[in-house]
């Protein structure tokens, strides 16, 4: 996997970009949900920010300050560095620009993107909080990498990378928060989405979305199970390796009382120490693999969110249609004087006397206006819905490709890692065997 441009080390999304382009050129895209034809999609990707700009989250720093409630707090700030990529190698590098952001600002950005682009599977942020300590250096380091990854993912997304707020997040330190809030995106945010498990009875659900939602649930479940067991496996493996270190000590002690056997034992013991120590590096590499899986655990959540939004849209549509139908019926009843459906109004008018024809006329007029409004609304909602499905499905396809590619790579590099672990093990034990043979 080679990148043709001088990219930062963590340029995975860019690399993935290149492969995706190749895949697309080879594939026959028959995509009725696609927003753009393959060639156009290619062009969009060429345009994406990640190609034009190097982005890194290079440092993390502890800060103290006063929060909104005027209480002193410590938090970590992250340094975002950006630099324009010169397309031709002029030999000169553009200057690096930088600014500091904290995690809550990243969250704000992501919320904004989720609301503004509901049909997009928005890249996830690294975990919100460890149970223990947000100041723990390992946690901060992993978070730094995760945040950088987030920015790169957004910057390589054909739609998201063009967002002005995102650009400002990268470039404009002061006044960014106000800028975001001015977009009024919070108003657009549907509070109903926050109720994760609330069900909306949709009469005609889109099968594809239902399946997708089911898939995202299963994916979340299986990845989190996998991560849990992997952690336990790693713990146990750690134990096995570390106990071997005890051999080192006892072989050394034993060698002291031996004559011919002494040297062999002593040096073998040294190899046992090496073996025991090697597990630390191995497990650290494995953490990287775990982080890759974790990203997709959270991505599954983002996928689910898109399905939910669609569900809600569908629900609203059906409610609106239902409302329209009932209004039409009411109108008809008033006009013809027949009561088809039971209504409280009808009953009360029967009980308390009929209306005057003028009253009835007025009512009919109001209803007719409402009906017209409703029909227009329904039309636009339908259109909205169709657009949503189209663009959502396009992004979902993009996401699927990305996911398959990334995870395949992750699995392969995991296997490679394990092979290297085996080779190290073989090496150490071969060395020990040689020492034993000299006893």
């Amino acid at each position: 996997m080679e990148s043709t441009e001088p990219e930062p080390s963590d340029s995975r999304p860019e690399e993935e970009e290149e492969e995706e382009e190749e895949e697309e050129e080879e594939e026959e895209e028959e995509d009725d949900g696609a927003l753009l034809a393959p060639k156009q999609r290619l062009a969009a990707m060429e345009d994406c920010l990640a190609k034009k700009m190097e982005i890194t989250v290079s440092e993390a720093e502890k800060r103290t300050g006063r929060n909104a409630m005027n209480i002193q707090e410590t938090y970590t700030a992250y340094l975002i560095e950006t630099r324009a990529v010169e397309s031709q190698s002029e030999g000169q590098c553009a200057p690096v620009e930088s600014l500091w952001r904290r995690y809550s600002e990243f969250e704000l950005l992501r919320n904004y993107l989720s609301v503004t682009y509901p049909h997009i599977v928005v890249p996830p942020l690294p975990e919100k909080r460890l149970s223990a300590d947000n100041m723990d250096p390992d946690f901060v380091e992993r978070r730094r990498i995760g945040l950088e990854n987030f920015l790169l993912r957004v910057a390589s997304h054909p739609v998201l990378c063009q967002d002005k707020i995102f650009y400002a997040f990268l470039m404009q330190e002061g006044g960014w928060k106000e800028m975001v809030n001015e977009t009024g995106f919070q108003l657009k945010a549907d509070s109903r989405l926050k109720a994760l498990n609330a069900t909306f009875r949709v009469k005609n659900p889109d099968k594809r979305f239902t399946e997708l939602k089911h898939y995202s649930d299963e994916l979340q479940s299986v990845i989190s199970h996998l991560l849990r067991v992997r952690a336990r496996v790693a713990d146990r493996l750690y134990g096995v390796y570390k106990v071997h270190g005890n051999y080192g000590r006892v072989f050394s002690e034993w060698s002291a009382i031996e004559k011919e056997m002494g040297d062999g034992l002593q040096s073998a013991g040294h190899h046992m120490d090496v073996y025991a120590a090697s597990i630390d590096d191995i497990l650290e590499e494995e953490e990287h693999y775990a982080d890759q899986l974790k990203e997709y655990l959270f991505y599954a959540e983002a996928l689910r969110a898109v399905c939910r939004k669609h569900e809600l849209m569908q629900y609203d549509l059906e409610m609106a249609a239902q409302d329209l139908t009932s209004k039409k019926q009411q109108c008809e009843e008033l006009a013809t004087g027949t009561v088809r459906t039971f209504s409280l109004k009808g009953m009360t008018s029967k009980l308390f006397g009929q209306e005057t024809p003028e009253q009835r006329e007025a009512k009919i007029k109001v209803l007719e206006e409402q009906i017209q409004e409703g029909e227009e609304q329904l039309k636009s909602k339908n259109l909205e819905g169709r657009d949503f499905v189209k663009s959502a499905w396009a992004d979902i396809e993009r996401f699927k490709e990305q996911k398959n590619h990334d995870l395949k790579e992750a699995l392969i590099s995991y296997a490679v890692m394990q092979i290297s672990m085996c080779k190290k093990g073989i090496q150490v034990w071969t060395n020990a065997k040689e020492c034993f043979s000299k006893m």
Partner: protein
Amino acid sequence: AASAPKPLPSSGPKSLREMPHPLATSSSEEMGPALTPSPDLLLPRSIADKDLSLPNGTPVDTSSPASSSSLLNRLQLDDDFDVETRDLFVTVDDPKKHVCTMETYITYRVTTKTTRAEFDLPEYSVRRRYQDFDWLRNKLEESQPTHLIPPLPEKFVVKGVVDRFSEEFVETRRKALDKFLKRITDHPVLSFNEHFNVFLTAKDLNAYKKQGMALLSKMGESVKYVTGGYKLRSRPLEFAAIGDYLDTFSLKLGTIDRIAQRIIKEQLEYLVELREYGPVYSTWGGLEVELSEPLEGVSACIGNCCTALEELSEDMTEDFLPVLREYILYAESMKNVLKKRDQVQAEYEAKLEAVALKREDRPKVPTDVEKCQDRVECFNADLKADMERWQNNKRQDFRQLLMGMADKNIQYYEKVRVALASI
């Protein structure tokens, strides 16, 4: 009644063929069951002829090669037998289960091939059970108390915890019994012991055992080694060193045993987690389309890893741990022999002192003190020779053992690596 103590053949470099057999001159009735209560006569001379096999007193051939070979021991610098000069081969194999009304037990086939004159036939094949090995070891300890007798695998097995009839247990025991006999075979003195001979050749060992038992009951205390509670003045440095060495050696082996057990335990716990880990990849593979192949691949790999790990743990349990434990037992029995040596020396010193105190005007040292001195020198020499042999064998045994351990680990990693390469 004790016969008058005859001058025992000195353990010096005189050939024993020059000596009259101490018991040959006495009448058979006098000797009765061949062994008098006199402890002196029973004391070790590293010569096998004191323990007469025939209760009617028929003298045993005095020109026992054991005596000459024990002489050779002291003269030769290197008494390791080369394979080419070996004339005795013993193997233990073919375990079989016997179900009787009273009990169920296992017998092993003991095969002997030899060109030695002490054996009537060039080949023997007999069936023996653990009890028989145990008997043999006791007999060797009795009859050759100045030598280091190899250990047997542990006698008692906690029922319910270990299955006495499981393949693994029987195989582990078989290997240990085979090692036991081979160590005796390799020993220049022990291999000529007549109990050993009978063990290898007799069709009905029980009948022979009963004879020995009868003798035993008549002799009573006198057979047992006299531990007269004498205090030792000064232990010769080399034996003190051996004692210290054995103490530390046992300790270290004990530690290694614990470490090895801990590793096996950790490996098994690791295995438990792995067994859950693999299938999750499979489940995931079921969800996916494009990814299902690599996911299934990883799952299969983990399965192979589990199998390989199981094999490694089994090998360590069956091959590595028992040998360690054997050597710990060996060291213990060796320490006992050292104690006996101390006793013999103490007795000698006490007697010497007693004589000095009496201040009698004797031209020469009384014979019983001389005997003691002989005993001490004999014992020391035998022990030293055995220690050297033991050290050498121990080195080779551990070399093999530890290399084997390294090998098994290498094999494990190889298996896993090959499985991974297929992804």
